[in-house]
């Protein structure tokens, strides 16, 4: 599902590349965790996979699409239909309540299903907060809404940046289980960047990013 080879990312103001000849393969239904020190390039790697950043070299192929060769329009359509991204800062739509935030991606993709969404939100413990404005939620609740939104449109690839960073131990357990189960059940590829050992251990493959390259955790 995800095939990355010889990926290179060099920021102009940096002496060394942040991603250096990195290769990675993630099959459908497989999960990968990436750990590493702060500033080692974990978020950059996710941004490259999502097509938010342009690579300096190498290739990224996701679901048969060579990301760096896609036109802007095609990249947009690709993200809308194939990707689910969980942001570290949630990036929720302030003007919507919980339900509309979660429904947004599915409505965009055109596969909105109210029953499915209801079940998803119940699993995440948000059944009582469906109509609440997102600005009134706690950090943990906002995190769960962001996760629900990333999964609701049934993406083939999920990219998660610290998905449990704002959650307590118990909720973290529930959320990560849901995330990994989703990938197995839907046959989606999951790449999760995390500092949490518990979350990392749930992944089928665990990597550590160091000096721009992936190595075993």
């Amino acid at each position, binding site marked *: 599902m995800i095939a990355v080879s010889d990926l290179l990312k060099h920021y102009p103001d940096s002496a060394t590349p942040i991603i250096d000849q990195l290769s990675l393969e993630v099959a459908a239904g497989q999960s990968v965790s990436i750990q590493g020190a702060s500033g080692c390039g974990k978020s950059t790697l996710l*941004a490259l996979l999502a097509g*938010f950043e342009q690579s300096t070299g190498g290739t990224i192929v996701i679901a048969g699409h060579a990301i760096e060769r896609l036109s802007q329009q095609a*990249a947009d359509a690709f993200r809308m239909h194939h990707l689910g991204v969980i942001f570290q800062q949630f990036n929720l*739509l302030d003007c919507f309540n919980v339900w509309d935030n979660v*429904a947004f991606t599915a409505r965009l993709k055109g596969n*909105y299903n109210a029953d499915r969404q209801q079940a998803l939100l119940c699993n995440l413990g948000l059944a009582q907060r469906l109509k609440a404005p997102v*600005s009134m939620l706690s950090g943990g609740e906002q995190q769960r809404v962001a996760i629900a939104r990333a999964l609701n449109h049934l993406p083939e690839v999920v990219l998660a940046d610290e998905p449990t960073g704002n959650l307590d131990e118990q909720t973290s357990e529930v959320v990560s289980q849901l995330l990994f189960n989703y990938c197995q059940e839907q046959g989606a590829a999951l790449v999760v960047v995390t500092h949490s050992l518990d979350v990392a251990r749930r992944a089928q493959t665990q990597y550590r990013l160091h000096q721009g390259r992936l190595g075993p955790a």
Partner: protein
Amino acid sequence: MSQAMRVLFLALHTQLATYRRRFWEPLLIVAAIFIASAGLTAVTLINAGASSQLKQFALGDLPVNFHIIPRSDNKSLTRSDYAELRRQGHNALVAYTKTAGRLAVDTVTLFNLLPAANRPASQQNSFAQQAAFNGIDDINQLYRNEVTLQTHPLSGLLVVGALSPEQYKMLEDSIPAHLQLIPFEFTSPANNLSDSFSLNLWAMGALMVLVSIFIVFNAFNLLLAARTPVLVKLRQLGIGQAVLLRVLQLEMFILALVGAVGGVIVGASLVGAISPVLSNIYRFLLDGQFSGGQFSTPRLILLAVVFCAVAVMIMGLLIRQRLTQSLARRSYLVAAFKRRFKPVYNVWLLLSLALVALGAWLVASQLQALLYIGLVLIAGCTTVVLLMPQLMSLVARRVPTTKPLLHWSMHNAVSLSQRTRLAACAFFIALAANIGMNVMVDSFRQATQQWLEQRLFAPFYIYTDFDGDLSAEKGAPVPLLARYGKDVRLNGQTLELRSFPDGAEYQQYLMLDDQSPSAWFAFNVQRGVFINQQLAYRQELNTGDTVSLPLNAGLQAFEVVGVYPDYGNPKAQVLLPETVLADEYALISAYAAFASLSEQSALESWLNDHSESARLIPRSTLIEQSMIVFSRTFLTTDTLNLVTMLVAALSFFVSITLLVMDIKPQLLLLRSVGVSPFRIKLSLFSQYCFIAVSCALLALPFALLLAWLLVNKVNRFAFHWTYPLILDPMIIMQSLLIGLGLLLLLMALPLGRLQARFYSQQEAL
């Protein structure tokens, strides 16, 4: 450095460091204060320049600062009073009377008061004397034939030349009990127009300040909102509320000072720069000079500093409130506050709208009318603040969720509108005032044009100072119709008596607001008269009432049989049948000449033989010139109006742009889920349109109410005349589209620069 100073300095340094990332809010505060003070300074100086011109009056080189007049309307100044005072040695007194808005003075006495070098060549030549005192008539020329002291009593005695305190005391002691010595203010015939001009300018100035207040507070709110996280951190680090309050007040004072002082200097310079233009307008419109540049810059700056201090003190209340909340979870506090006060807000909204509806019928004076305008604007702002988000929300809820981007756009627009309410209020006021003024001016323009076209029924008009009645002269190639006039006093006020032809064919040329069933019959048999609105409103006269007019035969009672509009005339006026005034006229204001184009040259030649000063003006030229004067009168206010709207639109644009910067993460999300940059820009623009159109639609009813108020109340009580309110959809749409276009153009500009790609990976993930 002491501990307290170090803390203060660090807090100030931290606040100022935020300028690197967010300099728009302070810049907006400075800009708003700058524009408000520049506008107010300009308006003050223009009005002061105009007023001083009207108050400065001199005969030749000699100033006239005081005059002696009867103490009350039922007392009179007699020739013997004049002689007695002169006999007591008060030789600097010159008798005068006012006629048709002009001043007629005793030129013989005046001639002897002038320094020898300034005297006209021949004392005998009264025309030369008249020329020496341009614009002043000779009283000896006036009192001839039927014009006597009985029909035209002396208005007063001018005290010519400077008066020392001792001379003043001596004169005051000498005057008889029924007279009084008071400062002299010459009111020119065009004074009414000047008052109107001045009132217009003040209204525009007040509007500009009001709009600026909203802009300042909006910018200040935005600044505080952006600063709150910094303030929270500073408080969490142990910097006290009092220190932060002082720092913010100091910062605001510096910003306000920069804006206010800059505004005063620019405003004063602007007036200085446009003085020649204003002078031309005044010369053309008011037959006077504009004396610009008479101001004290230090005094104005001092005034600006005082205003700044007051404004900063008011802002201090807001700062204190924000600082108290800044350690708490603000969103919960705001939500709780809204819930608690929602019923109060709704009651206030209903109450203000009810007051507006009721007030329209209760306004009965100029002060009440002005207060009512304030109420209308407050009610409008309340509607914008409380109702606009609700109405927008209603519309947003109708957008189908199957169009998620549009759905988000509409909801986000509601959210934006709630956070930029003060800027919306500023735009609302500017737009409502602009539409209201445009509708008012257009109604006035159409009414004036229609009135001129109806009243000027002859193809040509003759204006001359011919001594006598040209229409009675033999040999005229075409019939001439004289407009006879005579000024009398009625209930202590000057009243113009003017003739109107009593033939049935002329009836169609007198536009009447109100008339009794047999009006023209009563008029033709010299039993009834028509009165203008000015007289009707001032003395509360209606058709069927009686007026007593001092004619040669003594006081004669007439029935008021109709009321006619008389736009722009400051005086009360009565129209009498031509035959009545033909026997006892004091002046002839013009002659109507029923000449065809082929007869024009013959008429001109005949006129040249009879009067050198005669001017033959075609009807079309008269109408055209009147309309040019009309347009020039409103040029300055139109410009101020447009500037105010531009400023309000600019503030709205900055406010929205700043808020859009806050929703960057949401825009990034949209990009991450595959929404193209173009669609994001389109979505943002649709949000701006939604907010702007909602605001404009709310402004429309208030604008029309303002127009009605200006026409039927303010004009009615300030100038004693009104005209029909004409709601021309084209004018309304034009004003609306200009306002909206201006705003949307400004808002569309930064969209082009909105980055199409992700800003940086740190922001994206």
